[in-house]
């Protein structure tokens, strides 16, 4: 009864094609946007910014990127860390070559560069599938990280191989560097994430998105009905890499500020966690990308908070528990709800629709 769709008539194609066709969804989404844009910026502090919100936004973007490739187009990728590194290093190089360029433009260009790299590494996907493709993308992860560590040009010949961001402003307010206020970095990421999410959602509903899904569901059948596999797969690689590249650029420029490629873009710090995000959140679901990112980013912090600050365990015991609980949750999720948190949410909606008369 709460989530009632009866009585909501659609009288035009436009209203029928809306992203949120139901009034309840519209209200919920507008409230969320209201809170995100008009309340959080006023109450945010640097802990919430640096530990929770900014990483959540950045990883949501990376998860959307990977979801486009893996969830919608069915091409498994373990190269997320490598592609994020491309975004980060492009940002760094462009920043140092063009000191006056606007940071937003720099980040979008970095996304485009990553898309180009993604197309190159997507080429093998035409011949190899499934696990074999996963291994091929794994190679891209190792190759890209190795490249950025090996060739000093990428880190401007600094002694340590570290790249450091310098201050950049939007409307006169710094958004990168240590002096950037919390609300500025948060809003900067939020604007990018919201805009790009809408773009992704619409792409997925367009002809392109439908051909991705056709390839995912059965590539031979898709080819027979006229979906070109080359164009479709490469477009998925390109757009997915664009999102991941933008995420990598933000990760470097806005979030960490100083990065060392081997540590920050390691397969265990980026590629696997982002894959977990879309598995836990839900493959082939926009909402799932966000839920998964929120889950993976906040779970360790939440557990630590619960065990160290509330219960009073020592930091190391809590860490051991955290590792165990993390592993357990992964297994439980895969057994109990293989379709992820997004599926749980749709079950919840189903129940709310019938409540209070379950059958």
């Amino acid at each position, binding site marked *: 009864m709460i989530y009632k769709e009866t009585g909501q008539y659609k009288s035009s194609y436009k209203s029928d094609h809306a992203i949120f066709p139901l009034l309840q969804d519209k209200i919920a989404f507008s409230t969320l946007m209201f809170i995100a844009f008009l309340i959080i910026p006023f109450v945010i502090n640097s802990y919430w910014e640096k530990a929770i919100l900014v990483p959540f936004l950045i990883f949501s973007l990376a998860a959307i990127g990977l979801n486009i490739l893996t969830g919608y187009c069915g091409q498994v990728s373990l190269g997320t860390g490598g592609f994020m590194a491309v975004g980060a290093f492009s940002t760094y190089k462009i920043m140092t070559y063009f000191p006056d360029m606007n940071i937003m433009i720099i980040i979008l260009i970095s996304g485009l560069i990553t898309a180009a790299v993604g197309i190159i590494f997507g080429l093998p996907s035409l011949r190899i599938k499934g696990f074999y493709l996963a291994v091929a993308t794994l190679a891209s992860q190792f190759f890209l990280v190795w490249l950025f560590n090996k060739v000093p040009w990428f880190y401007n010949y600094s002694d340590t*191989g570290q790249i*450091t961001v310098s201050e950049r402003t939007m409307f006169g307010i710094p958004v990168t560097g240590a002096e950037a206020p919390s609300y500025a970095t948060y809003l900067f990421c939020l604007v990018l994430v919201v805009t790009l999410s809408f773009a992704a959602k619409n792409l997925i509903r367009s002809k392109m998105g439908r051909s991705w899904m056709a390839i995912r569901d059965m590539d031979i059948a898709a080819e027979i009905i006229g979906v070109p596999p080359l164009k479709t797969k490469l477009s998925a690689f390109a757009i997915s890499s664009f999102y991941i590249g933008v995420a990598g650029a933000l990760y470097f420029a806005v979030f960490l500020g100083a990065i*060392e490629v081997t540590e920050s873009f390691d397969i265990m*710090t980026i590629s696997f966690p982002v894959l977990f995000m879309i598995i836990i959140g839900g493959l082939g679901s926009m909402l799932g990308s966000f839920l998964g990112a929120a889950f993976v980013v906040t779970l360790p912090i939440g557990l630590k908070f619960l065990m160290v600050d509330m219960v009073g365990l020592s930091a190391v015991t*809590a860490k051991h528990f955290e590792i165990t609980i993390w592993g357990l949750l992964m297994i439980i999720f895969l057994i109990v709800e293989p379709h992820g948190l997004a599926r749980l949410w749709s079950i919840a909606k189903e129940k709310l629709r019938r409540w209070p008369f379950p059958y």
Partner: protein
Amino acid sequence: MRIKQLLIGMTASVIAVSSYVEMAIADLKFPMLVYRTGAYAPNGIPNADGFVDYYKMINARDGGIGGEKILHPECETGYKTQVGVECYEKNKKDAMVFQPMSTGITYQLIPKATADGVTVYSTGYGRTSAANGKVFKWIFNAPVTYWDGASIAVRHILKNNFGNIKGKKIALVYHNSAYGKEPIRTLQTLSKKHGFKLMLLPVDHPGQEQKATWLKIRKARPDNVLMWGWGVMNQVAVKSAASIKFPMDKFIGIWWSGSENDVLPAGQGAHGYKSLTFNAPGTNFQVHADIKKFVHDKGQASGDGSHFGTVLYNRGLFQAMVQVEAAVVAQKIHGTSKITPAMYRDGMENVNLSAKRLEELGFKDFAPPFKNTCENHGGSGLAAVQQWDAKAKKWNMITEYMYGDSDVVQKLIAEDSSKYAAEQKIAERCG
């Protein structure tokens, strides 16, 4: 049913998080970023234990610093930068000093802590050019830097070769990260100066896989091998060197590659392995007697207490001692026991650990004296060479504390820090 439970769980956690209120702190807070888990835990644990035991001892023996108790909340980083940032943000309020114990996290904190006004003390690690206090106001890396270390190792080799190493081959086995890359520039400069050939051999994180590295060493037969390693990388390197029968007395590690856990797994093979150090090993110091009396005998030892007197434990004591001493100095300068983070920085900048003061603190002959000044945050630059005796299972100091090649090092520090100052638009201090 599942949904209901999930909803209850979610609400509960939201309430828990939102009810989180910062504790009011009247004491002096020394947050600790530790890693007792992960690939670097074998080194992280003894070091963290040293810190905690020293703080506990000061609290028990002196009732804190000038009457103010020391709070030392631990935050587990697992040597991961991103977690380090979270830990920093969580604990930075009213924090006196951060000791990241990781070069990666130190680089991360340098701009942040400078903006927030929090002292970072990276004892003998981190960014070497932070020794230039004119540029790095909030960052300290006394008593000795990696570039000093590199030149001290070369000096030791020079001495063993009667001052001539022209045409000799020196290999550097290093952790392929900012930490391991630190000495390269210095060694390149020194190789030009002394005419030796430098061979660079990176080892990727975490450092288990070194077969190719040591195969290359076996083929190229360098005369000396230097190592910048940490965690499991050290053990594997020492074992591999022993297994290819590399002369161990020609193998010199930095001070982070010279603890008991690094050499014990190699057994007798490690006999004669050398490393640099800036503090003495062992338990024959007043501070150990005090810790035994006030902490260990009361059953309050940090961890299992088994690392008492090991190299890294003792280094933890030294690091904690400097941090506490900075608070003492700050209290003296500002005439109040309730010091703020800004006052603490003044204290750190005026730390003067003379031989006499070290003796008062129970650290007689434990480490060479040093002092910080406005210009110099890098300390004395003194380190000695110690050698592992596998039969007696102990480290022996085989040289006096010696200086590095300060002409070379100071020039490089000035270059690198002025580059940083230009990038970050920092005006030089100290007149």
